């Protein structure tokens, strides 16, 4: 390998550091006469719109028009699955839902105009929490079931317990907020620049709203300033507003959400409520679990159903559950429509089983890491949905290697000494594993396509179905094409993602885009080489099978010609210099009715060790050190993959510690901006942060032996939550420690208080007697 597998900077690194890399909204000045959009926001959490009068807005200077349901030539609904996402709702389903959009010559004019649109509402009662939704039996989906064995085994277990865990959601906080620009193109179609992970779906929804065939709509995504799942389906509505505005006004229209609008309008990671009961043997082995997962889906279905399924698929994490009875519901509440977010339900499922394991360990008086280890999948095991856990042995391998390299056992002892010597500050240490299934669980999404064009000078353009959101997909595609064709990276240009280059694509999601599109790029390059080889063979006067591509040359044993020369010769011989590539993941299927199948092509594995220090006076804490060992197969792009591991981990740390979404009693999002919703900054990065790849981890069937790495590392952050629990436990007397997620300083503070109270109660004569 000359290019693939090498550490190269991000394909756009130079553009990033110079500011020359363009994002959707950077194009605004290229559209003279562009109109700016601002939404009319409902001040109610749940209400009927009884009257909407746009006329006063038109009196505002600079307002051009107001978009309402009456302007929709097609179908005014953006729901990707069900038709449950009206673009101009009659029933307001969450606080600040947009009920109309004002287009102005300036953003200021549109904003002032929006304030003048007269809307009358009839307020209705709202459901704001999962508990309220359960009580009202308000579900989008559920119950759905996944089971194995007989969970009544719990009743005869040596250790039985039950509990509840509230898991908070997470704002994506992609640095680039939602953005779209739409205009009528030169041939009467609609063109859209959209910051989206799914240009094809934007195309579909825009065509639906405008009532035109999809071939009338072209969507391009240059790149995104972060997405993390937040732009998988939720870009649709904003592109639809822009397209509708352009359709109506015949002028370019820009929709760009401010941060405050983005946080108010767009969906987030699903909050979950987990209710569980579990049975364990005295040695810490799981005998059975019953888990009910309730996700807060918000007002419409969105991607909540597959998110729920992925949570159920991952309620085992890396552990063999001999008996499991899993039930899932998607609750319908009056909040933003919660959506895809890195991990896609997996994190919530895994957090639940990790909570159960830690509680079991502390109740049994066993080290949590020992209980975890005793329950690992072993070779030949199947999951609770009947899939063989391929390469299950890697879990144990990673675990032992990481314990060794992180000095786990020795640090356990050091921490014990530290804690003995410090009354008000305690350290905690934890190691947790990750097993994450790779593939879209909806089987039909698992396809990728590419278009590779070679020009006569030997330069190459690659288009593929995936979008670039910072994850380095384009970098990997560039490496794969260059490797395959034997060219330098610079000879391969990755083109912005467009629906008129590669049609009917899947969302760039599920960590699978490098696998799917990479295989498609490779397929196209392989076809081209097959066409070029005979041309080269005739130039080199050798047999076709002797021809090799490498070093910008096409070679045989006795000579070589420059690649460009072969391309020129091929052109003159009337050989087509472009090819489409295609790939579909083999061997995967799942039957929801029976709850059995093989939904994942393979699993990505990893583990992390984290150490924290808690200040008992405040509940504040610091992450001192994290060691990660990740199975990324044979990485195609080590810099990119390391970036995914580190970035995913820190994003997970944010989800589990400081990122707290708070809705007030009226259903208004109280953490609605960057000053009230805090994501990790420098202060959350561990002082020591060591990341390694598992060696000898070639993934058979993966592109160049590589493995998906986008989502799995997020869940390595569970080690931080468990380390916090370990530190809190050190304030107490060995009892169970629980706190809801995220583990904010406030929650940690009160958990410390409970632990201290428990210790003091035991230390007092009465308490000691009670224990005896």
């Amino acid at each position, binding site marked *: 390998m000359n290019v693939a597998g090498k550490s190269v*900077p*991000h394909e*756009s*690194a*130079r553009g990033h*550091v*110079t*500011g*020359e*890399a363009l*994002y959707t909204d*950077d194009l*605004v*000045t290229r559209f003279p006469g562009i109109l700016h959009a601002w939404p009319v926001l409902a001040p109610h959490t749940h209400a009927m719109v009884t009257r909407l009068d746009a006329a006063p807005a038109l009196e505002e200077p600079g307002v051009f028009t107001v978009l309402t349901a009456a302007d929709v030539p097609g179908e005014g609904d953006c729901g990707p699955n069900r038709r449950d996402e009206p673009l101009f709702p009659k029933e307001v389903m969450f606080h600040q839902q947009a009920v109309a959009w004002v287009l102005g010559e300036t953003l200021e004019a549109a904003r002032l105009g929006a304030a003048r649109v007269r809307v009358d509402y009839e307020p209705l009662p709202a459901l704001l929490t999962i508990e309220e939704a359960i009580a009202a039996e308000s579900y989008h989906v559920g119950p759905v079931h996944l089971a194995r064995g007989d969970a009544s085994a719990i009743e005869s277990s040596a250790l039985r317990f039950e509990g509840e865990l509230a898991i908070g959601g997470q704002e*994506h906080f*992609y*640095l*680039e*907020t939602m953005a779209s620009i739409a205009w009528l193109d030169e041939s009467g179609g609609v063109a859209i620049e959209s910051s989206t992970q799914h240009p094809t779906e934007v195309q579909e929804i825009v065509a639906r709203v405008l009532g035109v065939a999809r071939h009338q709509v072209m969507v391009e995504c240059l790149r*995104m*300033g*972060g997405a*993390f799942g937040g732009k998988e389906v939720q870009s649709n509505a904003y592109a639809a507003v822009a397209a509708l505005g352009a359709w109506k006004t015949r002028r370019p229209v820009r929709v760009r959400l*401010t*941060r*405050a609008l983005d946080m108010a309008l767009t969906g987030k990671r699903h909050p979950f409520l987990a209710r569980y009961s579990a049975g364990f043997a005295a040695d810490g082995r799981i005998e059975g679990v019953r888990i009910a997962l309730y996700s807060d889906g918000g007002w419409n279905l969105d991607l909540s159903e597959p998110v729920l399924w992925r949570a159920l698929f991952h309620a085992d994490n890396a552990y063999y559950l001999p008996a499991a009875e899993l039930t899932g519901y998607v609750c319908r509440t009056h909040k933003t429509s919660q959506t895809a977010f890195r991990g896609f339900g997996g994190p919530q499922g895994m957090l639940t089983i990790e909570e159960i394991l830690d509680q079991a360990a502390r109740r049994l008086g066993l080290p949590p890491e020992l209980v975890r280890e005793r329950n690992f999948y072993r070779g030949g095991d199947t999951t609770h949905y009947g899939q063989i856990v391929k390469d299950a042995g890697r879990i144990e391998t990673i675990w032992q290697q990481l314990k060794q390299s992180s000095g786990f056992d020795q640090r356990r002892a050091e921490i014990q000494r530290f804690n003995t010597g410090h009354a*008000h500050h305690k350290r905690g240490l934890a190691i947790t594993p990750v097993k994450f299934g790779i593939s879209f669980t909806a089987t039909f999404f698992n396809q990728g396509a590419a278009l590779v064009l070679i020009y006569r000078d030997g330069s190459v353009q690659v288009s593929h179905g995936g979008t670039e*959101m910072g994850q380095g997909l384009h970098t990997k595609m560039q490496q794969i094409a260059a490797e395959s064709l034997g060219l330098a990276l610079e000879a391969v240009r990755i083109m912005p993602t467009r629906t008129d280059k590669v049609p009917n694509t899947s969302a760039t999601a599920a960590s699978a885009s490098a696998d799917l599109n990479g295989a498609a790029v490779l397929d196209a390059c392989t076809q081209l080489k097959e066409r070029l080889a005979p041309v080269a063979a005739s130039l080199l006067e050798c047999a076709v099978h002797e021809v090799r591509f490498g070093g910008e040359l096409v070679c045989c044993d006795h000579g070589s010609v420059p690649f460009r020369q072969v391309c020129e010769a091929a052109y003159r011989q009337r050989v087509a210099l472009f090819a489409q590539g295609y790939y579909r993941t083999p061997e995967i299927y799942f039957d929801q009715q029976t709850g059995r199948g093989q939904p994942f092509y393979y699993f990505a594995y990893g583990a992390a060790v984290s150490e924290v220090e808690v200040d008992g*006076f*405040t*509940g*504040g804490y*610091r992450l001192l050190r994290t060691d990660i060992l990740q199975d990324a197969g044979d990485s195609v792009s080590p810099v990119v993959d*390391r*970036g995914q591991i*580190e*970035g995913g981990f*820190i*994003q997970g740390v944010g989800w589990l510690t*400081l990122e*707290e979404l708070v809705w007030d009693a009226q259903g208004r999002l109280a*953490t609605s*901006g*960057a*000053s*009230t919703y*805090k*994501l*990790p*900054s*420098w*202060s*959350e*990065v561990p002082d020591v*942060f060591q990341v390694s790849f598992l060696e000898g981890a070639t993934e058979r069937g993966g592109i160049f032996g590589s493995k998906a790495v986008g989502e799995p590392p997020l869940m390595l952050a569970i080690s931080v939550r468990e380390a916090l629990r370990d530190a809190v436990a050190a304030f107490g007397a060995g009892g169970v420690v629980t706190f809801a997620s995220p583990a*904010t*300083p*406030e929650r940690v*503070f*009160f958990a410390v208080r409970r632990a201290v109270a428990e210790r003091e109660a035991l230390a007092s004569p009465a308490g000691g007697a009670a224990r005896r």
Partner: protein
Amino acid sequence: MNASAACTPLRFLLNGRPVSIESSSIQTTLLDFLRDRGLTGAKEGCAEGECGACTVVLVAGDGSGSAYRAVNSCLLFLPMAAGHEIYTVESLAAQGKLTEAQQAMAAAGGSQCGYCTPGFVMSLFAEQYRPGRLGPCDPEALGGNLCRCTGYRPIRDAALALGAAPEGPWRDRLAKPAPPLESVEYESEGARFTRPTTVAECLGILAADPQARLIAGGTDLAVESNLHGRRWGRLVSLEAIAELREFRETEDSVRIGAAVTLNEIAARWNAPPESFRQWLPLFASPPLRNRATLGGNLMTASPIGDGAPLLMALDAVAHWAGARGRRTAPLAEFFTGYRRTALEAGELFTAIEIPRPGPAFSRFYKVAKRRVDDISTVAAGMAMDWDSAGRIARARFAFGGVAAVPLRATAAEEAVLGERWNESTVRRAQAALARTLEPISDHRGSAEYRLAVAQSLLEKFWWERREEAAA
């Protein structure tokens, strides 16, 4: 309105070229202006100075020369740029050759989605050229920039890989002084921006135009503009009033002009108390500290501002001027109600004065969800002096986030006076605190937590004193 003063276009240097503006509204941000001109390297990530994606650098005075100061262009109204020299990310690479900060970020894998990257590059650039800096760049200088992709490790590595600023025009520029700030009189769309140069002139404007709104660093006011759509007919900048820019350290006190920025205070104060050193890095972020002033922080009278609790604990005195002449009051009496101060309409906050010598022992504590650059759930400034017999001679327990105003918990202070500082006096002070504080529950924390943690901080203060004494 002071219609007699002649209005002039705004002039400043942008990427080395003079710019003249006549028709932008006074509340157009520098960021929007740049992007409208096609300089789209600076991005809007939050429009409230939290994310740093819009960072540019200003040339500011530093001793006899100058320094590049990273600032949030989303928080600078365009007229505030008048007279300044400003550089954006587009100016850094010369003839296609990246500067070291750019090279380091690219080589370290410091960009993923790239949206925050120009901001990081500008902060890192300013840090590399910071006068007097030795060794590698300090990653803390990037504390005002958020990245959602990388997890910061590669960016930290990029900062640590950068050594001394290379020779060349960027360094040469710093040998020369910053452009002097002159008065500004600018009008557009019926609104006016004035930058007076003396206190008397400023008071005259306030007297003539009661609606005029004062603006210092703008780090709060611009947020009101950007996020809440507040519009003003008249803004009066304090940036060029010499008296408000003074920092004076004498035997008896440290006097800090109301328009001195937080980072300037840090640079000029030779031997501040320990609590100040704890306070500064917890107060906002580097780019905000490059613009935010102590006067602005106190005049917002926010119950969760970080300035008041520390300054109250240090017995600071507020100075202001107006029609009734020069007035002063202890800061403890300065806040008269929710977001209200002792100042009357038309008065101008001029300085804060901190008596010397400082307390024998002082601490600043900030409790928040994020360790740095977050808004306090509870903030506390505490200070104590003892007599020769080891009894408490003076105690100051000041809090933010526990009532409608920043306050001194005088009942708790009195409860410990004349006592030894031990666990039992801590308990007594904690009980007094429970009677004094009136915290509320909100998205930052519950009332229960606020009270409990405020009490706990008293114990922490005792503990840290004990640890220090033992050491």
